[in-house]
């Protein structure tokens, strides 16, 4: 697959102060495990997203290290607290060093 991985994030844009909300994320990526062989029987080198991080106003909320056992087009959902208005930044780090980012502003009203 040669298409640029596109991250998608779904979460509410407004919340009450201190509210816990669910974040659903999806990124298109082949997640080549490094276990498969091509037609000539040679191993296809591993190329996966190895890390995911979530931050709020620059502070880390959680991160995840992924291995070859994560499915293609990795879907992930988890929970965050919205203490005040601010920006959530989600990053996916590829084996080749590329970083794919998605941002979501949340307003406390």
């Amino acid at each position: 697959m040669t298409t640029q991985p596109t991250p998608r994030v779904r979460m509410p844009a407004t919340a009450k102060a201190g509210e816990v909300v669910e974040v659903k994320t999806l990124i298109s990526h082949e997640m080549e495990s490094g276990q498969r062989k091509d037609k000539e029987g040679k191993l296809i080198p591993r190329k996966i997203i190895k890390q995911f991080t979530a931050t709020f106003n620059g502070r880390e909320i959680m991160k995840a290290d992924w291995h070859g056992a994560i499915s293609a087009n990795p879907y992930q959902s988890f929970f965050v607290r919205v203490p005040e208005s601010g920006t959530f930044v989600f990053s996916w780090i590829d084996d080749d060093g590329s970083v794919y980012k998605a941002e979501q502003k949340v307003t406390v009203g």
Partner: protein
Amino acid sequence: MNVTTSAQTRRGFLASATAGAIAVTLAPSSLLAAPEQVAAEMKKLFGDKKLIEGKIKLDLPSIAENGLVVPLNFEVESPMTEKDYVKAVHFFAEGNPNPNVANYFFTPMSPKASAQLRIRLAQTQNIVAVAEMSNGEIYTAKKEVKVTIGGCGG
């Protein structure tokens, strides 16, 4: 008195017989990660610390028709405060070529030590989850998933 002794020996015999049977079934059959490899990975991370069963809600289907996409849902019981929170949750697959699946790291900023993801399983196997708490306690949970079509190569 006599009765008790004979009962004990019988139990002892049964226990050793079962242990023998388990050892035979666990004999490594291929290149895939064996439970021993998972145990070795866990030893690297936690040394000889005591593993306590519980606190982890590990939700996986009992039967997965497609090993390429198996939903995994977890939640670790914790108040998630500065003093008491879940530091990390690690997942291992006993029957995949690589025993590592994912490692999740939480902070007191996370309201819940919970996430949902999708994993690949090569064959029917056990998934092991291990949670590290901020007070140093370690909890574990295990779930077997029967896989109809494997998720490696093809």
